């Protein structure tokens, strides 16, 4: 049973073909990794899957709903951790969690228990009443992950969730995500540039480059086809060794500016 179905999806920004005719499906309960070099089109695809961006062409079914025609129903089906910054700086860590919990209608009792549990996992519980603008970049990222996991939807979209985090925290978080996947049967679609993370958690992997899916399969299948012994080598085999232009869309720049604490 596939819970996500993408059919001939395209997204063009003027002449840039960010997503160029991709089709794939994700099975219910699966952990699916979406890998690719900078600017490959991963985040753009996730934005279309989560109704934030309109496709130029193609069709997306999420949890049996059409993202364009039934966007409200689709939004009831998923949770998301964005690649770029999405916290309210002027609120405390706890208030950011609380805001999310109410928007997603997590019942009060569960909400408070889970906020405490998650903030403990990302080691922010003792900083819960500090304004987010006083946090370091890594602390902000940990808060974003904790917030994203506050409600338990059918599907999680995790766009480079562990970017900029130390190895200890990354391990903790992936363990927790795997547990959610097992115990609550939550389907997970993730992107990451840490190949060992994908290797460890993903049931299947799609490699996307220049807006097109180059190959899709289990890690073993990819290694077999590329005649390699690690996902990293397979990745390089399929996407080539050339350096990519650093992705520099406006929002990414915002994140960088933000982390350098340039304020309005």
């Amino acid at each position, binding site marked *: 049973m596939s819970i996500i179905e993408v059919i001939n999806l395209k997204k063009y920004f003027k002449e840039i073909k960010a997503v160029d005719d991709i089709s794939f499906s994700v099975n219910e309960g699966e952990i699916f990794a979406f890998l690719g070099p900078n600017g490959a089109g991963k985040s753009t695809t996730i*934005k279309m899957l*989560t*109704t*934030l*961006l*309109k496709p130029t062409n193609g069709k997306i079914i999420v949890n049996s709903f059409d993202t364009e025609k039934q966007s*409200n129903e689709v*939004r*009831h089906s*998923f949770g*998301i951790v*964005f690649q*770029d*910054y*999405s*916290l*309210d*700086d*002027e*609120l405390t860590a706890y*208030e950011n969690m*609380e*805001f*999310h919990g*109410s*928007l*997603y*209608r997590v019942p009060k009792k569960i909400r408070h228990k889970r906020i405490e549990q998650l903030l403990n996992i990302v080691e922010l519980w003792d900083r819960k009443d500090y304004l987010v603008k006083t946090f370091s970049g890594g602390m902000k990222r940990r808060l974003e992950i904790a917030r994203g996991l506050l409600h338990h939807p059918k599907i999680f979209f995790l766009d480079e969730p562990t970017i900029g985090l130390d190895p200890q925290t990354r391990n903790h978080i992936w363990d927790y995500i795997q547990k959610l996947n097992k115990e609550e049967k939550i389907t997970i679609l993730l992107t990451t540039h840490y190949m060992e993370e994908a290797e460890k958690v993903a049931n299947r992997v799609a490699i996307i480059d220049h807006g097109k899916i180059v190959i899709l399969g289990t890690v073993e299948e990819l290694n077999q086809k590329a005649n390699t012994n690690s996902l990293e080598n397979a990745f390089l085999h399929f996407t080539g060794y050339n350096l990519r232009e650093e992705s520099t869309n406006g*929002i990414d720049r*915002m*994140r960088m500016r*933000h982390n350098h604490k340039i304020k*309005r």
Partner: protein
Amino acid sequence: MNTIYILWLRQVKRYLRSKSRMIGSLSQPILFLVALGYGLGPTFQRAGEGNYIQFLAPGVIAMSVLFSAIFSGMDIIWDKQFGFLKETLAAPISRFEIMIGRTLGGATTSIFQGILVLLISLLLGFKISSFSLLFTAFIFIFMIAVLFTALGTSIASVLEDMQGFQLIMNFLVMPTFFLSGALFPLDGLPKSIEIISKINPLSYGVDGLRGALTGLYQFTFTTDLITLLIITFILFLIGSYLFSKIQV
């Protein structure tokens, strides 16, 4: 209901926390009241128009509500740039609920701002004719606040960043303020200015507010209220539509 409340609460919290912004936005109305009120007062009196502070204060209150409402509507641009807008747009709530929550939040902080200016103008010598009409005054403050928050939201929905801000300020907000009867009476004006002031929604807000606080109406209470209601309704619909089209 709960989601509207939490969206509202966020705006109010942010407002209460930005003390510098709150105080900063009081300096302008104070300047207007003192410089114009005391400066032009004698001239106004000589022209046989009565006490200028009495005339000016409702206009300045309306001004502070106008500015604060437009800006809080336009806060969406900051949310867009700083990324928080994605968090609300990906949530399982309708765009319409977000619009209502944001508008009420922005309106609440603008009303608060208007009340602060009202209190300041009382300190500076403004006299309310009848306290029983204070409630009517609140209705007009509320209408101005909602109307211009919705307008700010509409504008912010189609702008990418704050670059167009100066343009909006110079070609929309300032003319709206100056040609609303906030600073001078609207009778006996050149035809072209009179026409502009008649289609300016703020004229009806200023008039209603001044009427309620001092008993001096240019139009009538009913005209003011109905005009504001209709324009607010239309702008709210336009704002909701444009907001629902935002992509991030």
